[in-house]
């Protein structure tokens, strides 16, 4: 009979959480650097079409092959990743800003403000993200404005809830009571005392949000609500590749999607490591 060995506590790991975090951060950093440097080195002329190099399978000249206009897919993929990352940073920052402001306001002001904000959170969670984004894109007439507004308005809810819960604890702490005793306004307390306290939470929220934001941008663009067809965005590349798949041009969709997956995966790992490190032991795996 095998002896019933007690399970090791979950904190016992082969590597410490901070080492894991450093590795994940290094991966993300290396990927970012690779994308930026490659995009900088790449020749803009390969974005144009070359009639002689249409539908070439991957090879030494064209790492990811070419599309039906003879455009180099490697160049277009790198450009697309750069665009995805830029849009991702902007929209995730906007989402974090919305979440921070509403989260602090709800907890600090309480009463009907809290009720309205909590109701708005429930409301926004109830509409499926993609449906909401399509609606917003329709409302502003598509384009990059639709992407930025649509994505910013669909990713703030869970972070706002976390920040609200944090501030609900903080608002009875001594430094807030003392500040209020000195006659400071709620706005001053929020700006001077609470903002710094919730900043780490907001930063972790940013990293956790980032993969979702990037995936949603690609999805929205793929469906045809985002960038114009000339833009080299990953969603556009995959959309363009679709009709050619049934004729055996497998590389048109494989590589752009795979690169997006790698970038998203790196960020998701980083976010997960951050979450493990910042949450108290026992939470998370």
């Amino acid at each position, binding site marked *: 009979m095998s002896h019933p060995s007690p399970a090791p506590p979950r904190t016992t790991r082969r590597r410490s959480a901070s080492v894991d975090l450093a590795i994940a951060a290094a991966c993300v950093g290396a990927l970012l650097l690779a994308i930026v440097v490659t995009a900088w080195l790449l020749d803009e002329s390969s974005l144009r079409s070359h009639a002689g190099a249409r539908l070439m399978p991957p090879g030494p000249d064209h790492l990811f092959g070419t599309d039906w206009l003879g455009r180099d897919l490697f160049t277009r993929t790198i450009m697309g990743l750069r665009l995805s990352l830029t849009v991702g940073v902007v929209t995730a920052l906007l989402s974090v800003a919305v979440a921070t402001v509403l989260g602090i306001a709800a907890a600090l002001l309480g009463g009907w403000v809290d009720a309205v904000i909590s109701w708005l959170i429930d409301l926004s969670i*109830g*509409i499926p*993200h993609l449906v909401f984004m399509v609606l917003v894109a329709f409302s502003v007439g598509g384009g990059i404005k639709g992407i930025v507004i649509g994505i910013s308005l669909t990713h703030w809810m869970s972070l706002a809830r976390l920040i609200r819960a944090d501030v609900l604890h903080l608002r009875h702490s001594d430094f807030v009571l003392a500040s209020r005793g000195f006659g400071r306004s709620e706005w001053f307390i929020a700006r001077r005392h609470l903002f710094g306290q919730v900043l780490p939470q907001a930063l972790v929220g940013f990293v956790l949000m980032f993969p979702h934001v990037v995936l949603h941008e690609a999805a929205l663009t793929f469906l045809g609500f985002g960038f114009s067809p000339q833009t080299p965005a990953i969603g556009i590349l995959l959309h363009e590749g679709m009709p050619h798949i049934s004729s055996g041009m497998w590389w048109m969709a494989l590589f752009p999607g795979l690169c997006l*997956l790698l970038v998203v995966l790196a960020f998701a*790992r980083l976010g997960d490591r951050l979450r493990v490190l910042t949450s108290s032991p026992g939470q998370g795996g």
Partner: protein
Amino acid sequence: MSGALDSRSVTEAPGRVPAAVPTRGPRRGRGLARVICVRVARLVGLLFGVSLLAFTLVYHSPVDPIAAYIGAEASPTDEQLAQLREYWGLDRSFAEQYLAWLGAVLGGDLGVSRLYQAPVLDVIADRFMMSLALMGVARLVSGVLGYALGVIAAMNRHRLLDRLICWYSYTLASTPTFWLAILLLTLFAVVLGWFPVGLAGPVGVPGSEVTMAERFHHFVLPAATLSALGVATIAMHTRERMLDVLDSDYVAFARARGEHGRRLFRNHGLRNSIVPALALQFAYFSELFGGSILAEQVFSYPGLGSTLVDAGLGGDVPMLLGIVLLSSTFVFVGNLIADILTVLIDPRTRDSL
């Protein structure tokens, strides 16, 4: 929630009393009924909010509904345009238009789709059944597989099997849904030729004559895409939940008595993790719906998702509003079921709802 559950379980651990069984007696029924009433009332309020939000967004769209309706070929006179505006009530104020639309919706009239030339309700009902079949099967498969994988991962913590399952889940959680769909399409439909490239039935055959086998044939790949993605989420959540259970004092005590492996899982793990896993199934309706939109688009599956894309791109306002309302109801009802399940397993959460 989990922490509180565990501390309660400690006191009951020596016997085989499962931790998460609700207290019996008259209070249980009353409390549950109260929770359901409160939640349904909130659901109705939220749906009004959704309708107002959606109508406001659509109202401010730069897309001219009349231009979208008549298309580029026709060149109507100003008089005809004015008549159309009056007929659709576009010359009235925002509040009047909203109330008129809301009144019609409450009366069961969602308007007429401009793209499909049919009542929105009929089109949506038809398409929603297609989507529901897809999502239902995907949820069932991913629920069973995801739960099993999550339990296996947790029971083999930090071993090779656990790492493999974790990596599978992490990778799939970062995979663009539509890309996975394209990959499956490339591999199974184009390269291997096992499945047709798209549509819910063979081309050129009327819907009524499509056999069940053919339907199934066209159904497999989109369902597989959705299932594969769902497995990842559910496996990870189940693993976390199971690890909480395995780290608890009552499991330590059970191990001290010699329980291990399958028996440990049956006596302590199963009941403490199955209902949260079930509740999770309903709480993720929003993601499920989003995934379904993308999978339907790739496989040209005639569900609600592809209808939404058509309506959004084609400026079909009544259809767009109808889909927003229906999909939100779908998500809210899912959350409601998840809440009820949570209350059923842990009556103390009643007060927090």
